[in-house]
């Protein structure tokens, strides 16, 4: 039985691309927002999560995160706050899933190679987690998802 991967993305590119190259090895289910992802993990069983980072194609109202509080941080500017929520939405989605008790291994689609400190913070907060850069080949994608689905990612500290 193929491993079930919940993809959370604002488009359909990951689902379509992964299905083309890894459809025989995984079953991909796609949700388009944090709210849909929360509903999906509550209703179905998955082996791991795959999270897009930037969500700039959803309606601002569908973004997770406190817009008013974020705007306060950006000099009261709701436009910049919305952009921040869009650019980091993948993390907000995982934060909400963890808050809801979901402990599934998660893979971010984001290049953290230049942000070791940030990645260390995220791994500490949301483990088990991994990341794939934008230029990951299908083989790398399959390998990473296999590890995640089989529970081989490092667990949460403590």
């Amino acid at each position, binding site marked *: 039985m193929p491993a079930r991967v919940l993809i959370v993305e604002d488009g359909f590119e*990951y689902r379509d691309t992964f299905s083309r190259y890894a459809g025989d090895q995984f079953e991909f289910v796609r949700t388009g927002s944090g709210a849909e992802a929360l509903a999906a993990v509550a209703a179905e069983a998955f082996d791991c999560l795959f999270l897009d980072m930037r969500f700039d194609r959803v309606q601002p109202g569908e973004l997770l995160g406190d817009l008013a509080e974020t705007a306060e941080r950006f000099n009261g500017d709701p436009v*910049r706050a919305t952009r921040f929520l869009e650019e980091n939405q993948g993390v*907000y989605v995982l934060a909400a899933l963890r808050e809801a008790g979901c402990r599934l291994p998660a893979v971010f689609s984001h290049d953290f190679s230049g942000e070791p400190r*940030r990645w260390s913070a995220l791994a500490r907060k949301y483990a088990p987690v991994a990341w794939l850069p934008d230029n*990951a*080949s299908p083989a790398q994608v399959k390998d990473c998802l296999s590890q995640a689905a089989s529970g081989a990612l490092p667990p949460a500290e403590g």
Partner: protein
Amino acid sequence: MSPLLLLLAVAALADPLDALAPAARGIYARAEEQEAAGRFATAGSFYRLVLEQDPRFVPALLGLGRTLEAEGRPEAAEALYRASAGDPDVTEALATLLESGRPAEALVAWRELQVIRLGDAQPWLHAARLCIRLGDLEGAGEAWGTYLRLLQSEEPDGDTLLALTDADPAHAEALLRAYVAGFPDGAAVAGARERLDRIELEAAAALVDLGADTPLPAGLVDLAARVDEALASGRTSEALSLAGQLVARSPSTAESHGRLADALLLTGDWAEAEVQARIARGLAPNEAGTRARLGRLLADGYGGRRNAEALRELAAAVRLRSGDAALRHRFGVLQQAEGGFAEAAEAYRAVLIMEPEGPWAEDCRVRLAAMERQPPEVPVSALTPTLPVSEEAAHRWRLATVLLERGRREEALKELDAALVLAPRHPPLLNLRAGLELESGNPTAAVALWRRSLEAAPDQAEIWFNLAGQATDRDERRAHLGRAAELGYADAHYLLGELAAGLGDWTTARTELAAYFARATPGSPYRQSAEALQTRVEGRRRTVAAVLAAGGVLGLGLPSLWWWRRRSGSTLAQVLAAAPETWHEAARLLAGIRHEVLKHNTTVLPDVAAALETGDRGPWEAFTARLPELDEKLRAYISALVTLGASRGMRLVPETDPVLGPLVQTFDRLKRIRRPEPDELLTLSRVVNERVFADISRTVREICVIECDEALVRAVYQRVCAEPGLAGDNLPELWVTGGPVTLRLFRPDLEDILANLLRNALTAGARSLAVALSESEDEVTGHPLVEFAVIDDAPGTLTNAMIRSRFIGRGLGLAVDLTNRHGGSIRVDAREEGAKAVVVQFQLAEGGLL
């Protein structure tokens, strides 16, 4: 009808005299006669006789009251009325009696009547009048409102309305407008219009600011000159910084704000420039420069949407500085754009009188000539050409044309189809019908109609061009464009050139572009794209030429190549280093290449190669199907980078750039591959997915990263302390804690932010001052953050709201703007013992933003 209602109806219709005994009726009639004749004493006696017989007969009581009043005995009348209180008519008589001399008591009576006579508007009208007299405007307004509601659509009492609006100007406008709109012929319309006119005048006058400008202090004249010099030399950052200082030190001087507006305009910050220009104008509304600056800004900054206000400002400026030819020319141009031809002509003539040989004279002459040109007469014969189709078909065609102009599309189509039945091979009719099909989303039907049109008249270049636009096959598209080009359609040459370039056929691309530029009119929609393509083609040609030269002249090759590269343009890294302010935009475009071109696309090349090894061409065909779209996206991003470089005066040549060049070359090669080899695909994959990817990330990551430490903060502080307005003062020692912190910012901007905050703390009277450098972490996203807090004990209040509204008094606008521009935030925190900290926060620079 129910018996009760019937009874009530009969009662309402009954004559009150019916209630009297026959003898009393006669006496009552005599009373009325005597009263009508002015014999009030006699009339009163008769009324009394009636009342003796029937004390509750109200008409007699009212009659007696009237006679008493007429005899000059109002107190007796009042006593009479009060003795019969409770009857509506008697209460009304009492209220009327009291209204002139005792308004408060009259008001009580009218209010009783409001209850007794529910639904009657009159008591409310009287109450409104009395409230006005008593100064109770709220009561008057409420009474008037109820009066209007009860009147429904009847005309209200105009005199009371005018009295009310005179007494209560705050609510007058709405009441007057409602009256004028509802009763345009009403009795009080003239008075209402007169008052509305006054209200509008008062409102406009309230907006007229007579200004409170203070002259520039003598100590700041040098600083102002330095701003002017920086502005004239185009040294934007310096001008902005100096003008910010000028405003901070002389905030109530129009000249300071005007210079800051000019500096902000240079940076492209239109919004803040307008704020400053308006402040300057408010401070010195009678100074031509402030009016002219705001007028020009409004005219240039809003694409014509605020030309009306711009014109008012320029008109005022012209009035104040009538001898300025440049100003008058600008005013004329704007007037002409807004349709004020007479005013524009007057302005142009004035310019020609003032400076007949000046720089604007020729433009004024051309514009005047154009405005005075008379339309030529078209010969009648030319307007009545021989009809190309039958009269009936022409009639239908004309009808269709008119119906289309009026938006009645369905009817137009019927007429057009009827015309086509009569003239089925007439090209203009077929082309019109085809255009309508295309508009309706039926390209297949449009293509069929165009083909019929071309069968009838094959030399229609535009129709071949249209067909090319709908072609689904590249060869078919090229064939149609070729036919259009043969027939002299210049735009077809451009598209042929683009097609050739897409296939790597640079020679054909060059030839077609040359043909395009030779034939295209100035208004060709493809001119800009053609110029961009020409840059690409020439870059490519130079690359080939350089390679040939290098091979042919090896001895001179390397120096020549070095010289050629120096001459032929700049690399992306050079552009970013020379113009670091382009970094945000460049990073966005490079992120676009990574996300939209490489991700999901070129990353599959290894698997495409693996599939080819097994003889499966499916993935390769899927990849090549997407390739044209990817290539188009890549070209668009690269073109934007070239434009970005050009905006800073640098010519970025993508083909020779160490980051972009390999990417462009890989895509060119991928497009040319007809027989894909797995090894070559793997090689190309390594180039784009590994080398280019890493290079793009590094390019972005390594630029503009600076370290802020104690030494930098102290250096900025020393510079601030040495400024003319502060030097020599007893300034506090600066405490610096924490750090160093790493962030992505241009060093001059970081220094400006720090200097602005420190300077403001000092000028606000700080006696102790500290800067705390620290790091933190975003709770959700894990982003590491850096903060620098400028802590001072200066008196006065500073809040986040003040900072965000560009609080001029503390001159923090510059720090706020620079912080915003670099994605940071700024806030005010309260600290112990009445101190406060202005805290600036940025993301810690540990990697690129991609």
